[in-house]
Structure formats: structure tokens, C-alpha cells
């Protein structure tokens, strides 16, 4: 399961998206993502998705703060955010959540059965390809190489 940020609401989602990118540079993407949802996202209490809140979360995760600040304010994460947005939009993504299952698009929060059907089909396709000599480590790369580049 791979996560790409697709910022739909820039006013609220940009800073936390940059924060998870900066945390990823220290291999703490999922920890930061969970902390933002648990402590930053407004739920039953007022949320705080500010830049300062991201620093507080980074400290809690014991990240290297100098590097975190350089990454969250730097160009690399901004560029990654823009590239992911452009890529996913080009492939038909219009909102979140959106999913690509071995490259096959499933948009929105769908019932689990919709995923199961596609995943079962893809497992069978992969098994057939492996039986025909494909290598598992190259399998997804072949999907990327042969897949459609835009809608």
C-alpha cells in the first residue's frame, strides 16, 4: 500500500501534506500521518493543522528538528506535492480517497467488496504472469511501463 498526497483543500491540507513528506525523509511518514489524524485533525475537539503544530508533532516523534524544518519549508516536498497532484489528476483522480489497484482506478470510499473483486483479479493475473516467467520484483514496474499515461 503506497500513499500519495493529493491535496484537494489547499488551505487546510497543504501544511500537513508537507509535514508527512518531511517526516518521510526520516522514515517516519506513517507515524507523522497517524499523529496528524489523531492530534491535529479537528474531531470532537478543535483541531490544529498549523505549521507550529507540525513542529510539536515532529518533536514528539523525536525527529531531527533541524532537518525536519529544512524539509517542511524546503523545495523538495513542495515539488513532490505538486508532481503527485499533477500525476494523479492526469490519471483521472478528482478527489480523495482514490485508489489504483495495480494501476486500475477505484475512486471514492467504496465498499470492501469492490476492492476484493479487483484484488482477486489482480492476484490471478500476477500468478499467471509469474507462471509464464515474469519475476515478482519486476512485476509492478511492468505495469507502470505498459500502463496508460493519462485518461
Amino acid at each position: 500500500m503506497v500513499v500519495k498526497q493529493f491535496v484537494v483543500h489547499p488551505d487546510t491540507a497543504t501544511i500537513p501534506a508537507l509535514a508527512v513528506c518531511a517526516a518521510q525523509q526520516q522514515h517516519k511518514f506513517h507515524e507523522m500521518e497517524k499523529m496528524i489524524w489523531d492530534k491535529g485533525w479537528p474531531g470532537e475537539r478543535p483541531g490544529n493543522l498549523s505549521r507550529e503544530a507540525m513542529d510539536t508533532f515532529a518533536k514528539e516523534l523525536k525527529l531531527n528538528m533541524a532537518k525536519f524544518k529544512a524539509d517542511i519549508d524546503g523545495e523538495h516536498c513542495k515539488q513532490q506535492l505538486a508532481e503527485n497532484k499533477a500525476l494523479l489528476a492526469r490519471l483521472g483522480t478528482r478527489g480523495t480517497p482514490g485508489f489504483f489497484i495495480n494501476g486500475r482506478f477505484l475512486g471514492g470510499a467504496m465498499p470492501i467488496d469492490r476492492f476484493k473483486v479487483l484484488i482477486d483479479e489482480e492476484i490471478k493475473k500476477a500468478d499467471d504472469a509469474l507462471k509464464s516467467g515474469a519475476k515478482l520484483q519486476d512485476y509492478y514496474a511492468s505495469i507502470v511501463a505498459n500502463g496508460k499515461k493519462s485518461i
Partner: protein
Amino acid sequence: MLAVQEKAKYWLVAGLALGGLACGKADDKKLDDIVTRLDRIEKKLDAPRPPLRPPTPPPPEADTKTVYSVPIDGDPFIGPAVAKVTVVEASDFA
């Protein structure tokens, strides 16, 4: 609906007629006007009406057959580095 309208019309006309007897023939024209207008209202009520809004067409079936090229180099992931099925999620904090 029609029966109720007929009854309402009957009582209205009857009431107006009684009133008319009391007031004399000068009001006959007013009574005719009222009945004419009532007929017009009834015709409007009985006329077929267009639906308030056109029916919404069903959404098109999502295309889940097309395979798109979704590179994942350097993106964060959960699970093994190589797998038979790779799911890419487009996510945001919203």
C-alpha cells in the same frame, strides 16, 4: 381532489347566492365573475404539470478495466517492497 373542489364550489356558490338574494340583483355580475374565475382556477389545478426537476441520469459505470501507469518510486508504503498487488492511495488531510 375533484370531489372536494366540486363541494367547495357548490358551497361557495350557494353562499354567494344567499348573499346575493340579500343584496339584490346588483351583485349578480360579481357572482358571475367569481364563478368564472373559480372555473379558471380549477382548470389550472387539473392541468398536467411538468415535474419539478428533470430526473437525474444514473452515474456512468466507473472504468476499472483500464490500467494506468502510476510510478511509486520514493513514496511511503506499508507492506512488502514487492508484491503481486500494489495499491496506491490518493490521500489528503481533508
